[in-house]
């Protein structure tokens, strides 16, 4: 009887162990990619549950930006030509919004997972004289690639460590739905402003 008991115990341990194993093999990373359906609409990029680190060294998810409309632009801080001008474009949007500037998130995720750590992001934020409505983000290669795919931003890393990338300013509503995109540097942002003002009214 003792032996039978032992068998049962060991058997159930084995069984539990297997169960746990299969569970971790089947969930883990993958399931965490898709948030449970809740308040986030299906098409929202806030369904992405990868974590990012801000210029303030805080760990965030994209869904943390929910509640306000968001202007999002992917950049990297070692960029000589396009990114400072793109950043200036976004700053101009903020200025044009006046008081309403505080009611919008300005989020700049960086392509450069190897160099744009929080400290470097904070330096860029300071150098570009960006206020606290701006958040710069560091993330893994995988998270940034996924975000770029969701935002239809093309980019590739060059041999010298810099990036070729498309210049796209995206406007998201308070739930993370992609509402509007404008390509180009120093583009005409009349439409972008119109969309932002609509979102602020609604």
């Amino acid at each position, binding site marked *: 009887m003792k032996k039978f008991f032992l068998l049962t115990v060991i058997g159930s341990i084995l069984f539990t162990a297997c169960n746990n194993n299969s569970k971790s093999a089947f969930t883990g990373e*993958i399931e965490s990619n898709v948030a449970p359906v809740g308040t986030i609409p299906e098409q929202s990029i806030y369904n992405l549950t990868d974590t990012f680190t801000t210029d303030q060294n805080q760990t965030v998810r994209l869904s943390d930006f929910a509640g306000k409309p968001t202007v999002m632009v992917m950049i990297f801080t070692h960029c000589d030509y396009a990114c400072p001008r793109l950043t200036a474009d976004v700053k101009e949007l903020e200025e044009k919004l006046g008081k309403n500037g505080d009611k919008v998130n300005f989020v700049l995720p960086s392509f450069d997972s190897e160099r744009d750590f929080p400290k470097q992001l904070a330096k860029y934020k300071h150098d570009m004289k960006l206020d606290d409505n701006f958040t710069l983000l560091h993330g893994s290669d995988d998270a940034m690639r996924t975000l770029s795919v969701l935002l239809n*931003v093309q980019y590739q890393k060059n041999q010298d460590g810099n990036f070729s990338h498309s210049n796209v300013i995206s406007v998201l509503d308070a739930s993370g739905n992609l509402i509007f995109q404008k*390509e180009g540097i120093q583009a005409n942002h009349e439409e972008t402003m119109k969309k932002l003002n609509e979102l602020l009214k609604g």
Partner: protein
Amino acid sequence: MKRILIFILVFSFAYATQGQTAGSVPEKKMLTIKSGEYIPFFRLPGTDPVFIKSFLLDETAVTNAEFLEFVKANPQWRRSKVSRLMADTNYLKYWKSDLEIGEHNKELYNSPVVYISWFAAKAYAQWKGKRLPTVAEWEYAGMAPLVNSREGTLTSYVLNWYSKPNPKVLPNVRSTYRNKYGLYDMHGLIWEWTFDFNSFIKSGDSRANTEDELKLFCASSTLYVNNKSDYASFLRFSYRGSLKGNFCIANLGFRCAKDIN
């Protein structure tokens, strides 16, 4: 009695382990692709070729039978449950149901899974403890010549395939050629997702003039084409450039890669 007990324990343990690793679909063979240099199709002038570290690549594309295992284990990737953000309405549309490829599709069990999005391919790879190959890795591995050179040069083989309409029933994996690495069907069967498929920098509007191009794309004015006669590569890069992550398309599947530790 003690011996019997040990025997039962060992046996049941062995059985449990086997059941876990093997499943009903055998593990896919991965082949080592040795390190080397790859000259990107589009690149900056004066830059060196890209150095590719040795890596592992699946011998064939992921099949319907293999993908079914993934869908069974990950309910969020079932056709009825998948998020539209992650896969468009064509996702696995030829399957009979969520968990059935279907009797009428029996000849497809061992054919590449298609009508799957980049997100789905990436999630499958993660589930397997693998990843999607980069464009550079895929192109580097795909460049290898045919084992049987009587079938012609790689370029002529690829162009010949591109010129043919899609077959009514997608053939099984290993039904085209094998290359010098031992990889099957790198060309000739399907197009394949890559991790950074959205790398190819092109204009959203080809009518845009060069000044606009410079404003739209950082470094775009300095990209040039490696080999202008390589029409096949041009088609492949253009195709990738036209995709979005949630697209599910008739002849687009994938195979997985893995780092060598």
